[in-house]
């Protein structure tokens, strides 16, 4: 039956096409995110002062991670900002961003709730709240959001 032979030929042709699709699913790294802060502080994590790196600034909570991982508190997305810190955003949590500095080789892109963002020795965590003029104010994070970030949910 020529029809059946055609089906088998098509399935042979399909196999490399499927393999090709798998190889193309990695997207190039997006440009760093410019998060304009509401506060006009001179030094922020990632800056340099007298040749030394600034690790944390006003409003950052410093956590001794001891090499442990931090996790996506909600389903969301990670991006790097211009100072190489991770910015986590979630469509489930409007009006807020979370900034995580000090992570080694963080995972960038879409994350499910509870997936590891990265790990490090010292985490500098800041909660940012959207202002009407498009800037982001550093606010005091609730313990609950820190707990959600430090433990796999």
């Amino acid at each position: 039956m020529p029809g059946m032979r055609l089906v088998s030929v098509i399935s042979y042709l399909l196999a490399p096409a499927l393999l090709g699709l798998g190889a193309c699913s990695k997207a190039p790294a997006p440009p760093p995110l410019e998060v304009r802060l509401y506060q006009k502080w001179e030094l922020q994590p990632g800056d340099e002062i007298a040749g030394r790196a600034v690790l944390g600034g006003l409003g950052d909570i410093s956590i001794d991670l001891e090499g442990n991982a931090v996790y996506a508190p909600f389903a969301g997305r990670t991006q790097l900002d211009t100072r190489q810190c991770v910015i986590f955003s979630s469509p489930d949590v409007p009006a807020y961003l979370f900034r995580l500095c000090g992570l080694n080789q963080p995972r960038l892109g879409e994350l499910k709730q509870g997936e590891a963002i990265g790990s490090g020795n010292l985490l500098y965590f800041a909660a940012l709240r959207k202002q009407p003029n498009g800037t982001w104010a550093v606010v005091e994070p609730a313990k609950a959001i820190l707990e959600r970030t430090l433990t796999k949910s």
Partner: protein
Amino acid sequence: MNHRKSQVSSVKYMLAGGSVVAALGLMVDPRGFLPTTATGKDICQVVVQPEATLTRQELSRLLTVQERSDKAQIRRIAQNPYCKLPDIQIRSGVTAQREAYPLAFDSQTWLVVLYEGNEYAGYAFSFRH
């Protein structure tokens, strides 16, 4: 006879080809090809108004409301939401309420609105419903 033999061999080819495709299909994670299918645990907690949607006009009016405005200003444009998401604590000492509205012209997309008490804090588009 010849005809029958070729029929058997083409069935064999088909089975072989089909199982290769099936095996490959098992290795490929189709979720990676879709834009955003990450389903979080933060789906609706309570459905308030099953028929609630936002029209284009309501959506554009809603987006003109400034953050920090009174909740009532949003409610005047969009009445009861489709559902409420679980309350969350982001800012110390403040509990945030979240409500979701599917778009009338694109039901896969929801507008999620966050309030802190009577204050409107902001919105986000959620593309996975």
